[in-house]
């Protein structure tokens, strides 16, 4: 062989032998048609991962705006400048523009599964329905999370469309809540036709010896009804009134609500965390004495004493003293730390029994049933706080009962992302205590993210 030919051969070998068609070695493709059982499990777990992604951050941000918490973060002043002082910057994804994308990413994940579940030959019709019922319930939960943060602006709802299509139109808040409510009913129907078992494992957030079992379609239906109860109570307070409060009571009855004491107030569905590889730890878990997240001191100022002496049990279970820390100009300070999530794998509630009882109390009170409302409130006072029962509670005005309910709800669901939303939908934002009049504000809502608005501009 002559050198020339050798050269040409080398060239030909190089051109011919290389495979240029490389597939992504790092990540799986989105779920496709006729998925396998393993792919369906991965998609179902993926929904839980996506749904979990904003839980801790929401609890912190809503907690700061609702004056349950502070974050004195030397690295990021915006926990004070945006969340407490304002204005909220809808251009950033972390504060003003937050609590939107993660929810819609979860909804996309859910729709990716819903769009192909009908082609899953590996599933029985009942299993397909069970899968739909689970996915739709989680979708409704994701929408509800967006609505909890975005009160004034409307939100996009019909988002199950190709990304290259024009974005889904905004609908009004009322329409969005009705959409979520209907979605929960659709999910409930699918769960009811879903047989006795899911074709996937939902993991420890839905089945735990201490927090109850919601791991089959009939049991998961109770979670669906619990969320329905929350949605209808919210709707009731936002203008729908008696119709929705009544629907809430119906839904709550079908949920896992329990005041018999057979299950704990913590019974419910949870986002779970662990230190296992690939998993994440609860982001709200910190060293309570040195961590960046602190407790608003108003929680100590308003805490009730037990008849036996000592603070409300909920306070002592969730809050601990720590060295005084300050931040901001003029300075804010606190000497209280969080032990609400005391371990790296402490779960964050999606919805739990204690909330359901307080939702029922709110619905009954609004419907003019002060006696059952007062009973539920007193039940929580005693059971959760170790406090004395308020004898004449049912005799107080509707508004006074609501005040008491909100005071109990503050301590019952502390650092669980409720207070700001409750105070707002019930028109009580003005009652939230601010530290620095003239500097601080209480935001009425998070703005629509700029990144939602800009791509829609012509």
């Amino acid at each position: 062989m002559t050198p020339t030919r050798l050269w040409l051969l080398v060239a030909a070998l190089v051109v011919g032998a290389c495979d240029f068609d490389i597939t992504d070695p790092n990540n799986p493709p989105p779920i496709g048609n006729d998925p396998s059982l393993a792919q369906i499990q991965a998609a179902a777990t993926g929904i839980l991962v996506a749904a979990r992604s904003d839980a801790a951050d929401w609890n912190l941000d809503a907690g700061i705006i609702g004056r349950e918490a502070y974050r004195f973060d030397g690295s990021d002043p915006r926990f004070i400048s945006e969340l407490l002082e304002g204005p909220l910057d809808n251009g950033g994804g972390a504060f003003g523009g937050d609590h939107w994308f993660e929810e819609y990413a979860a909804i996309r994940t859910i729709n990716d599964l819903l769009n192909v579940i009908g082609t899953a030959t590996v599933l029985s019709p009942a299993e397909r329905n069970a899968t739909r019922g689970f996915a739709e319930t989680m979708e409704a939960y994701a929408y509800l999370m967006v609505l909890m943060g975005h009160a004034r602006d409307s939100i996009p709802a019909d988002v199950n469309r190709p990304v290259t299509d024009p974005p889904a139109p905004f609908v009004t808040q009322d329409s969005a809540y009705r959409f979520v409510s209907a979605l929960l009913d659709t999910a409930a129907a699918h769960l009811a036709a879903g047989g006795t078992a899911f074709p996937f494992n939902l993991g420890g957030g839905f089945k735990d010896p201490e927090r109850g079992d919601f791991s089959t379609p009939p049991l998961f239906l109770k979670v669906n009804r619990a969320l329905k109860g929350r949605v209808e109570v919210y709707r009731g307070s936002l203008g729908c009134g008696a119709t929705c409060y009544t629907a809430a009571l119906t839904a709550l009855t079908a949920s896992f609500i329990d005041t018999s004491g057979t299950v704990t107030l913590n019974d419910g569905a949870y986002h779970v965390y662990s230190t296992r590889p690939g998993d994440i730890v609860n982001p709200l878990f910190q060293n309570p004495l040195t961590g960046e997240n602190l407790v608003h001191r108003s929680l100590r100022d308003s805490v009730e004493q037990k008849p036996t002496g000592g603070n409300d049990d909920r306070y002592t279970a969730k809050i601990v003293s720590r060295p005084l820390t300050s931040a901001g100009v003029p300075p804010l300070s606190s000497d209280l730390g969080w032990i609400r999530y005391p371990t790296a794998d402490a779960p964050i509630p999606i919805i739990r029994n204690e909330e359901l009882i307080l939702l029922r109390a709110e619905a009954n009170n609004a419907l003019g049933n002060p006696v059952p409302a007062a009973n539920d409130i007193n039940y929580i006072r005693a059971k959760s706080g170790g406090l004395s029962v308020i004898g004449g509670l049912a005799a107080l005005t509707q508004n006074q009962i609501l005040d008491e309910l909100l005071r109990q709800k503050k301590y019952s669901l502390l650092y669980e992302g409720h207070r700001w939303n409750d105070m707002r939908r019930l028109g009580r934002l003005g009652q939230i205590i601010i530290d620095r009049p003239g500097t601080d504000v209480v935001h009425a809502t998070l703005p629509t993210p700029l990144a939602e608005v800009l791509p829609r501009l012509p």
Partner: protein
Amino acid sequence: MGKHLGVMLLALGLGAGTAAAAAAQQRSISGRVASAVSDEPVAGATVAVVGTAISAVTDASGQFTLSAPEGAATLLVRAIGYKRRTVPVPAGQNTVAVSLEQDIFNLEAVVVTGQATAVEQRNLPQAVSVVTSQTLERAPASTIESALQGKIAGALIQSNSGAPGGGAQINLRGVSTINGSVDPLIVVDGLVISNASIGNNINAITAAAAGGNASNQDNPVNRIADLNPADIDRVEVLKGASAAAIYGSQASNGVVMITTRRGTTGAPKFHLTQRFGQFRVAHFMRSRVFADSAEAVTVYTDSALVGQLCNLPGDACPNFDNIGALWNQHDLSSETDASISGGTDQTRYFLSGLLKHDAGIAPHTGYSKQAIRANLDQVLGTRWTLAVSTQVIHSYSERGISNNDNSGTSPYLVFPLTPSFVDLRPVNGVYPDNPFERSNPIQTYALFRNKEDVWRALGAGTLRWEAVSGERQSLRFTATGGLDYFEQRNDILSPPNLEFEPNDGQPGTIVLGKASNLNLNLLVNAVHTYIPASGGLQATTAVGLQYVDRAPNTTNIVGRNVLLGQTNVDKATNISLTQVLQPQRDLGLFAQEEILAMDQRLLLTLGVRADRSSRNGDVNKYNLYPKAAASYRFTDIGGGGDELKVRAAVGQTGLQPAFGHKWTVNNTGVVSGILGSFTGTFVGDSGIKPERQTEIEGGFDATLMDGRLNASVTVFNKTITDMLLIPSLALSTGRTQRVFNGGKLRNRGVELGAGYAVAQSPELNWIIRATFFANRSKVLELPVPAFQVGGFGTSLGAFQIEEGKSATQIVGSEGVVGDATPDFQMSFSTDLDYKRWTVGMLWDWKKGGDVINLTDLLFDLFGNSEDWSTAGQQRFTDFGNGLTQPYVQDASYLKLRELSLSYRLPSSAVAQLFGSRVKDARITFSGRNLIRITDFHGNDPEVSNFGNQAIARNIDVAPFPPSRSFFLSVDLDF
């Protein structure tokens, strides 16, 4: 392509015949080539018979012998560092003596313009910057990027922080892309090497990118830092598409071509350099000094604590220089360079070794490097030569902790919250807790370890076959194969007894990162040179192919909750792992024709490259990148060898899509031990293709005043189309971004260069040089709404891409508040030899170009800036009133990059000190970055929190402060 190959094969056949015919009519000419000043022999000079392809190379004693045609001949004698000389040789004369004059402006240098061909500087149709070893070595540099700062008109070279061990961006001719990669292609001895930046995942401790995914705030080192500057013979920089088109879709950011030193014929020459020196902090931000507790409590509410600390008479506050105490290390730094070179007619060699240690300015920081190189050239028979380059490098850096964080660990995110009246220094080895923030930086730097250990092997072999070597034509085949392999290991240890470690409830963090990359290269080409019998013309045809296979593999393990004293990741209770693979394959085919005509006054070049890549959507499609260039020399314009060259060039290059641009994929996560797959944020484009840059440049080069003045003017206009645009999607889609090709960006600018030999005599040589560069970009078409590509949101200053605006504009709450592109850059250098003394210096001036200074904001935010009462309070008030401007600051600077003063010892002293074997000895004092003049209000105006960035450089968040260095060195030749 096929046609060119046909022409060449035809030429091959013709050449074989004519070569045989010519042999009968030859005669022998021999001679000696020597320096005109010293009469020392010039080895390695090329002696060519004008009008033919016949040439020879001088040996160590300057001797040559060649066969020339019968009759009168003209010899053209050239050598690196000397001006060319033509020597007529009458028909009867068979010996000749040639003396050459020095070439101070390197006009005679041959510049590699193609993959396989080179053009003499005097004919060069593009503005290719050449930096030779002399200018590289004026003052010792840790890495090659700093050695190039201020030496290339059109290049903005800026370090990303002051952390030891590199991390710098070479930006050629301004913005070339918005979303593509930013680094120029690095070619060493023909081999495409990796310049990857692989983060150390210090993010596991800083949480700079909350969420834990890959962060670009890790302050990574781009791996060009591994190269040993002392091994480099010359660096040629192809700045834009008009020069770099032959590198196709890898070259939109320009090409930095590095040629390492090779042996020259002669007895072994030993060179030894020994340096000792020191690094010292050049500048750093300090905090506010509080007069008394009354002033202190206006900021720090805990009046009991303030009272306890401000305990001097009259409640005055003490002032502890905690920040100064941290940046106060100046241990001995040293460097040993040794090389041996030499060779025979058949074999030439260059061997070198490097031992280097640069001590850092803070505890447990520093940079060490060891390298050995062997370059070998071997003649194999009459027509074959083999050139081998091999190098093994070990580099090791400790870079502490700096840049953005969300965990209160990076010093400049702790100092803004820490008043100067608290003493953080250790007492009896015990570090006090910082009562004002989560960590004590002095403790952190004492106990924290951040090590990066890199082993790298580079090897290239070039086999050359002179298939035809005749009077009228020659044909040469060249094959270069090579590999570049490195393994980077990162070990970060954040022990549980650090103040901040227990905060996350999992005391102690260990990060183990292992990354490797293998670049395999194959370059095959053929070059045919044809000189017709009529003379006056030389046609060079080159064709070839280039194949590059890259295989980066990065794994990273983070362990949390670690037992004190343990350093292995498996001694943690919470372990997380990541792996990222980014394989890539590229194939390019190229052809080029160069015609040198009109007595070597006119040069015309045409070329085209066809590229396919695994990064493209269509992996089978060849994208074409043509180029054309012309230059013409007006000779003897003022007599005495003065000349003016007018040149123009146009070319296209591409910029490949990033890895992953063509795919839409899911992410994964784990719940209850079950793997979940959920939607990813990015929507890929299965039809994605490279960006295309079209550049036109033109200019002139003049040599005036009898060769003492050299001036060059270049203007360029580059237009980038099919840009990789990554518009935001409405978030309700559940995705954040998609990629597609579109839009149009323009960047134009001017480069000036001038050199003047003030004095030229055996006793005094003095040369001064200056460069100037300015460029402006404009987004011409943007088929998507304006979007931001960097920053922390509008209110903190963000880079916003907007049609009709500069690509590097910075917007704030109140609108446009700045631009990162400098108004202009200039550099001045001077090199003076007087008798035995040599003085050299280089000043680097950047005028304008803004930096978003968030470190300054943090000091103001916590009422703790050094100038709080005079300016800080006002800045912060303005910021509170909705202005971002106070923190978008002018980052102009004037730096004395290099200073050296050298003395060559008299031979008597040399003999006395080092013995008779040492021929030459020099003692040098040199310094780098000794003087800095700037109004910038941060640690250093050269800063990038996000590392190398196309647009979003110039963001200052708690950077490692810059250092200056001084060295005293001895150079010995024997």
